[in-house]
């Protein structure tokens, strides 16, 4: 294959909010709930990616709520995809850009950031096939799973990332099934890591740590191939908490071990923000209506699950962690 310089973009890490790109690419004027976690994720991703960006938006909250009606908040080009095919549409956009650049027909001087913003359903449930195939084929696309732990837009139904014990409209607690949700969730980054040879960078982010989030987006966009980010996106409506607590809920997820912040790069894991002493999961769960019905034995089961995750972190994390970063 003849070598061709597609002029991929590279990004530098930032140390503080002051250094963040000033322009907004996710503008005010969208029908997302007040305090929407996914919307905040979208805004920070768009801000970091900048003007030379094309978004692919599979159906979900970040499609329907953002684009009602016949208008969108994206200052950059964006295309709707079906919930089933975010990865495939992203592949098509990327492939077209490559050939148009080779033929000198592309209107622009840099390769655009091609970013798929898919929900948890559009990433690891109905969208899993397309996501995996895109990562396998090596398209230069950033696949983001914004995880609000449910099919939120259709009124909160269970998805493969919904936590054990969550009350959703497809897993309501009842006499026969007291927990509500019986199954433990899939682990999206683990589905990606190691199985897709051309993926060299995978990371988890959390809306409670925005600087870390933006730097991981930069790092992902600076890779020459496909990358995957798993973003926790607390959902006030779906999880049942006061909307002002969105960022705090994210932090609490990390502090209890429900969510770990890590990067996987070149085969190595790097964890950050590891709590010196983990808070009990009940502190996280009692703040959310979706867990209100649980009995102590269910909370204990969740704690056991999280303890298992924590032991994996402790076994894998390097002894010297990154210096604590402000927020």
């Amino acid at each position, binding site marked *: 294959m003849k070598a061709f310089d597609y002029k991929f973009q590279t990004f530098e890490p930032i140390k503080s909010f002051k250094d963040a790109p000033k322009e907004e690419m996710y503008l005010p004027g969208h029908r997302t709930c007040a305090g929407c976690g996914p919307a905040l994720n979208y805004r920070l991703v768009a801000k970091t990616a900048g*003007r*030379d*960006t*094309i978004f*692919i938006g599979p159906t979900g909250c970040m*499609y*329907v709520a953002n*684009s*009602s*009606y*016949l*208008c*969108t908040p*994206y*200052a*950059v*080009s*964006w*295309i*709707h*995809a*079906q919930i*089933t*095919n975010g990865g*495939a*549409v*992203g*592949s*098509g*956009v*990327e*492939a*077209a*850009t*490559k*050939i*148009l650049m*080779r*033929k000198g*027909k592309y*209107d*622009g001087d*840099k390769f*655009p950031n091609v970013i798929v913003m898919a929900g948890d359903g559009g990433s690891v449930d109905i969208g899993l*096939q*397309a996501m*995996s*195939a895109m990562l396998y*084929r090596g398209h230069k696309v950033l696949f983001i799973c914004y995880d609000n732990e449910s099919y939120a837009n259709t009124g909160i139904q269970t998805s493969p990332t919904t936590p054990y014990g969550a009350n959703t409209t497809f897993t309501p607690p009842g006499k026969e099934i007291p927990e509500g949700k019986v199954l433990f969730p899939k682990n999206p980054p683990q589905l990606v890591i190691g199985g897709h040879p051309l993926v060299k960078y995978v990371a988890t982010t959390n809306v409670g740590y925005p600087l870390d989030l933006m730097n991981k987006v930069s790092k992902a966009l600076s890779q020459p191939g496909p990358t995957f980010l798993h973003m926790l996106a607390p959902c006030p409506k779906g999880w049942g908490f006061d909307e002002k607590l969105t960022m705090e809920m994210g932090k609490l997820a990390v502090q209890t071990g429900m969510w770990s912040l890590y990067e996987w790069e070149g085969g190595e894991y790097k964890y950050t923000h590891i709590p010196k002493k983990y808070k009990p999961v009940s502190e996280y769960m009692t703040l959310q209506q979706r867990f209100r019905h649980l009995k102590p034995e269910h909370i204990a089961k969740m704690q056991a699950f999280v303890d298992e995750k924590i032991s994996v972190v402790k076994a894998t994390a390097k002894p010297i962690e990154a210096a604590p970063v402000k927020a």
Partner: protein
Amino acid sequence: MAQERMLTGCSAAAQAAKAAEVEVICSYPIRPYTAIMMELAKMVANGELDAEFVHGEGEHAQLSVVLGASAAGARAFTGSAGVGVTYAFELYSPLAGGRYPVHMAIADRTLDPPGDFGSEHTDAMSVRDQGWLIGWACSPQEVYDNTLMAYRIGEDPRVMLPQIVAQDGYFISHIPDKVLLGETAQVKEFLPPYKGPHPLSVSCPVSHGPQIRPDQGAPMDAQRAQTFLAVPEVIEQATADFNRIFGRDYDPFLEKYKLEDAEIAFFIQGAHANTCRKTVDMLRAAGVKAGMARLRWIRPWPTHQIAEALGHVKAVGSIETSTSYGGAMRGGNLIHELRASLYDLDDRPLVTSFMAGLGGETIYPDDFKYMADVLLKMVKEKRVDRYVRWIGFGE
């Protein structure tokens, strides 16, 4: 120099895609269209064609990839067969309504259950309400020609719609026949480069497909229907240009074979029209005034052209190589719209239908002769006794 080669329908489709300089190709294997993609893969690998060859993970993905590619401004090509065509179903409306003029080459295959590699038209037929341009070819030459015409018509600014050129699996896709390939200059004159009106771009950002309200849905549908009113004229112009540049003689909508003074006629599309034509000659030699109307486009359906071509005929029989279980005539698909096209004539023909060639079976001249006998009997008795006859199954 125009090259004449012996090519199968699959090879002809690949050659047309190459001539059209397609930019993004998305493949997935399924009999009997796979050879189209195998040939394009070779062309890309040895540098004959500079295109992005994307290995789709399935037919649904194929149509999704070409949607993204077309939205980004590239000329995109894909294809499938049988259940592959139906697996991709979710994408047909978004592609048509989003006005992405991608091309899909279909080599027909009977739908499951269970696996049957033989050709039936039901696969591409099932897509007909989704808003695409769809038509059947009856020879490898016509596959090549129709593919170039499809891009020209589909990418016309007055149209901007995706297109399907279908060919019978095995009969056309796998049996070689003479194909005259176009010269580069001819193709360049006939087919301008693809220019989408609002591609996804950085310099002029756009949003493709925001959510709409129900009251915005109705005008969206109306505008799509409005486009189809403009398509026939574009088809006529493109066919005339094609005929002139490449030295062919296509009627835009219908091949009219010995129809002018016909008393009975066969209404047919696809490969079996070749046998039909031969049988018409045999019938004529035996003194029967038979003719054939071969449909080249089912979408847009040439309602008036059919009425004009067949209005004077006394009895018409449609040959159905597809199924419409529970349909009005309890048979195939063409009969419904054929009867609808002829309904308003003062002196309308008697119309019946024949299920034949299903599963990929051959239709023999004797079968067409039998059908002719049925049509002649209808003319004699001045009535249609049955909507449908299943050839070989208790007529």
